[in-house]
């Protein structure tokens, strides 16, 4: 199990109705690719975040399948269209079965 996994997101506090905003997300995670050899000469088993999803008030923004080519501490930047105030829900799925969640509120200005 990966240690010190910590999700973080950067979302504007408010937007005007219908505005497209840019969201940045990052989760601290080693993204062990399964290609790397450990000190004992054996391959270190793969252990990655394999899926990342974002919803706004239950509506899907993006749903990403992630592969070992994504760098350590996966960083993902994307756009969302904000029609109403509410809550973004971010979910990261780990190979080891862990699920990490983060939320962020957004207001309509």
């Amino acid at each position, binding site marked *: 199990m990966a240690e010190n996994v910590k999700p973080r997101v950067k979302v504007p506090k408010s937007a005007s109705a219908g505005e497209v905003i840019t969201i940045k997300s990052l989760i601290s995670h080693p993204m062990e690719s399964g290609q790397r050899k450990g000190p004992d000469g054996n391959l270190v088993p793969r252990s990655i975040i394999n899926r990342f999803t974002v919803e706004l008030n239950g509506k899907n923004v993006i749903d990403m399948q992630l592969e070992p080519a994504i*760098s350590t501490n*996966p960083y*993902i930047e994307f756009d969302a269209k904000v029609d109403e105030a509410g809550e973004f829900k971010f979910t990261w799925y780990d190979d080891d079965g862990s699920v990490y969640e983060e939320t962020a509120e957004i207001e309509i200005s």
Partner: protein
Amino acid sequence: MELNRRKAIALGAGGAAVVAFAGSALAQAATDAAAPAADAAVNTAAAPQTEAKTVEQWIEEFTGGAEVTEGGITLTAPEIAENGNTVPIEVDAEGASEILVLATGNPTPGVTITKFGEAAGSRKIATRIRLAETQDITAIAKMDDGSFKQATSNVKVTIGGCGG
């Protein structure tokens, strides 16, 4: 090609660097040969999902064998990456419902499949990826009308720096 090669050599600016870059110029040719070996390596590592699919398999699964045309999708990646561990890329395809990104020279070429939902503000994502060597990155977008669009970008990964 000739121009790129010369530029790479100029950047490397040393006998040893020429060797390094000449090697990486062959990366594409080596990719196909390396893929089956990579399959075996991943399987023995007992990865949770044994899906070291080849580039061709990824594309076949994503497109179902449909025709893929150039244009209508923008892939932004550095011409030269200072370090292959963290290479920023951005892919943008207006009107896409899904985008597949492949690092064709990696032992496992898959990078991501992104599906855009009803609250997506664009059909664009930016992320950071690992490149094992100099290679082509390919992005294929599945458009809302069912067609497929493709863009490819070559990234030279510098090797032969100071280890530290």
